[in-house]
C-alpha cells in the first residue's frame, strides 16, 4: 500500500466520475433528470473501445463514444421534453437500452487490444514533491483536461450569461420562457451535453484509466455513483470533483486492503481470510448511501438545492404555471 499510488489512482478514477457527474449537473440544472448515465457510460466505453479497434485510433474511438452517449441522451430528451413522459422511467429505460446495446454490440471485444489513449507527464509540475507524481505524472490527457474542466464549468454555470439562462430554465422555466429564453432548446442542449460527457467518461475507462472491455464489469455501477455524487455535491462542480477523487482513492484503498501488506510494511490482518474481501467490496456502495444521506440532509436544511423545476416537464401555457 502506497499513499502516492492511492492518490494517483484516485485522481484517475475520480476524473471519470467527475466528467459523468458534471454532465449530469448540466442536465439537472436545466431541469431534466437523466438516470440513464450508467447505460450511456457503458455504451461509451464499448463504442470507444470498439471504434478504436476498428479504426486503429483511440481518438476517433473517443469521438464516437462521445457521440454515442449524446445520441442516446437525445432519445431521453425527446421523450421527456416533447412527449413529457416521466423522466425517471425514461432514464431507467435508457439504462437498460444503453447497457443492452453495449453488451450486444460489444460481444467479442473482450481481450482485444486496440490502441489506447496514452499517458503523459506534465514537465515541471511533476517534480513537486509528493503531489507532483500523483497529479501530473502518468495520466491520460483527459485527466489533465478534467483539472481545467471543473473550474470552467463552475464559471460557466455561475458567472456567465448562458449559465444564467441554464439556471433559469431549471428553476423557473415559465419565467425564462416569457423573456424569450428557448426552454425546450436549451434543455435538449444540456441533456445532450450530459450524454456526451457520460460517453466520454465511459471511453475514459475502457481506453485510458482501466483499459479493456469487461462487459458490464467495465463500469460496474459507476454511472449510478456519479448520479449520487451530483446530489452529494449539491449541483456544484467543485464538490462533484472532490467527491469523485475521494471515491476513487477509496476504491484503490479497498483494493490495497485486500493485499498482504499494509502501510509501512505491516501485515494486513484482513488478509488472513480472503473472503473478508467481500465486506470490503461492499464499502463503496455503503459509503455512497451514507454520502447520499448527508447530501439529502444538507439540502433539506439549506432549503436550497435541487433546481426547482427538476423532473417536471415544461408545458407551455399549462394552467397554474
Amino acid at each position, binding site marked *: 500500500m502506497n499513499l502516492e499510488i492511492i492518490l494517483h489512482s484516485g485522481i484517475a478514477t475520480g476524473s471519470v466520475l467527475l466528467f459523468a457527474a458534471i454532465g449530469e449537473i448540466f442536465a439537472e440544472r436545466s431541469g431534466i433528470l437523466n438516470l440513464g448515465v450508467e*447505460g450511456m457510460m457503458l455504451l461509451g466505453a464499448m463504442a470507444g473501445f470498439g471504434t478504436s479497434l476498428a479504426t486503429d485510433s483511440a481518438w476517433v474511438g473517443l469521438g464516437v463514444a462521445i457521440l454515442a452517449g449524446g445520441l442516446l441522451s437525445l432519445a431521453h430528451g425527446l421523450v421527456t421534453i416533447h*412527449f*413529457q*413522459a416521466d423522466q425517471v422511467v425514461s432514464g431507467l429505460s435508457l439504462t437498460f*437500452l444503453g447497457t*443492452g446495446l453495449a*453488451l450486444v454490440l460489444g460481444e467479442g471485444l473482450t481481450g482485444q487490444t486496440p490502441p489506447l489513449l496514452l499517458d503523459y507527464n506534465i514537465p515541471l509540475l511533476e517534480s513537486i514533491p509528493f503531489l507532483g507524481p500523483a497529479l501530473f505524472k502518468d495520466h491520460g490527457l483527459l485527466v489533465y483536461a478534467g483539472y481545467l474542466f471543473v473550474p470552467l464549468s463552475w464559471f460557466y454555470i455561475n458567472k456567465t450569461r448562458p449559465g444564467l439562462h441554464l439556471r433559469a430554465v431549471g428553476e423557473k422555466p415559465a419565467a425564462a420562457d416569457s423573456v424569450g429564453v428557448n426552454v425546450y432548446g436549451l434543455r435538449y442542449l444540456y441533456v445532450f451535453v450530459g450524454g456526451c460527457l457520460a460517453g466520454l467518461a465511459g471511453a475514459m475507462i475502457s481506453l485510458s484509466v482501466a483499459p479493456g472491455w469487461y462487459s458490464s464489469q467495465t463500469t460496474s455501477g459507476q454511472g449510478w455513483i456519479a448520479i449520487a455524487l451530483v446530489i452529494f455535491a449539491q449541483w456544484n462542480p467543485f464538490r462533484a470533483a472532490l467527491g469523485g477523487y475521494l471515491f476513487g482513492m477509496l476504491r484503490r484503498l479497498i483494493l490495497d486492503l485486500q493485499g498482504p501488506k499494509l502501510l509501512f510494511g505491516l501485515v494486513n490482518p484482513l488478509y488472513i481470510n480472503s473472503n473478508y474481501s*467481500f465486506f470490503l467490496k461492499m464499502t463503496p456502495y455503503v459509503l455512497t448511501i451514507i454520502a447520499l444521506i448527508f447530501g439529502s440532509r444538507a439540502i433539506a436544511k439549506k432549503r436550497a438545492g435541487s433546481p426547482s423545476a427538476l423532473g417536471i416537464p415544461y408545458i407551455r401555457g399549462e394552467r397554474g404555471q
Partner: protein
Amino acid sequence: MAIRLKIEQRVEVPKWLPPATSVGSVVAAFILGGLVFKFVGGKPLQALSFFYQAVFGSWGVFSDTLVKATPLIIIGVACAIAFKMRLWNIGAEGQFYAGAFGASMVVLIPIIPLDSPKFVVIGLMMIMGMIFGGIWGFIPGYLKAKYKVNEIITTLMLNYIIINWNNFWIFDQWSDRGFQMTATFNRVAWLPRLADYAKEIKAFSGVTLHLGVIFGIVAAIVVWWIFRYSRWGYEIKLIGDNPNAAKYAGINISKNIILAMTFSGALAGLAGMSEISGVVHRLQESISPGYGFTGIIVAWLAKLNPFAIIPVSVLFAGLIVAGREIQPAGLSFLLQGIILFMLISSDVLLRYKIRFVQVDEEKV
C-alpha cells in the same frame, strides 16, 4: 384544399389504447431488436422460433417457461405496489437475494431441526424470506421517508451490497467443501413440484413446475384486491398521483412510504425463497438472470395491473428460456430496454391524439 395534422389533448382515453400501446411496444421491440441482432451477425428469425417454442411448444418447455415466470410474477407484483406510489424500487434484485439468504438460514444453520414436518420448514423459509426481503425494502423506504434520500440510488446500492454479503456466506461459512456454493438443501426444504407426483400421473415426470407459481398467483390476487377494494390501495393511488393532495387529505406519507417499500421488498424476498427452494435447492452466487430488473419492465408493460402481470411474465420468461440458446447473451437485456423505451414513448399517445384536418386554402 389541404390536409393538416392537428395535435390535441385527449379528454378521455379509449379503453383499448393502453393495452394496444403495450402490445405495440413489444412488437416494435422485436423488430428493432431483430435488426440490431442481424447487424451483429445473429439469426433473428431462428431466435424468434426458439421463443415461439418456449411459450407455445411442448409442455416440457412450457413448464420451464412457467418456472422462469414464477419469480417474475412475484417481483412484478412487488414492483407494482411500489410503482403505484411512484416509489421507484429498483432494488427488487437485491431484495430477492436477501430473501434467498433468509430462507437459506433456516436450512443451513439450521434454525429448526430438519426432521420437522415439511410444511413447517417451508413455512418458516417463506417467513424468513419475506422478513429479510422486507428489511432490504425497509432500509431505502426509511431513508426516503426520514431524509428524502433518493430511493433509486439506495435500492441500487443495496443490490450490490447484498450480493457481496451472500457471497461471503457462500464462499466461506456455508461453502460446500470449498466450492462456491452451499451444499444441496435437505429435501424437506424443497418446494413440492409436479415431478414429485410422477408416480401417480405419468405426464408429470420431469416437469419442474413448483409450488412457487401458486405464490405468484396468490400475490397477484392479493395485490389486485389491495388496489381495487382496499383503503390502503386508494391511499397508495392518491400519494402516487399527487403527494400534496394526499397530505392535504390527511394521509401519513412517511408511514406509507415505509409500508409500501417493506411490503414490496417482502414480496421480492418471497420470490428469492421460491427460487432457491423450488429450483436451485442451494444458495449460490448466481440465482437470478436479472429477475429483479426484468420484473420492473414486466410491471410497467402490464401497466401495474396485477392480473396482466401474469401473462406478461410468461412472455418474458419465454424470452429468457429462448435466450439460453441465443448468442449474444445481452440481447434479452437490449430487448427489454427497447420495450420499456417504446412503452414510455407511446404513453404520449394516451394523452394526445393526432387528427387530420382539412384546411380551406381560401380562408387562410
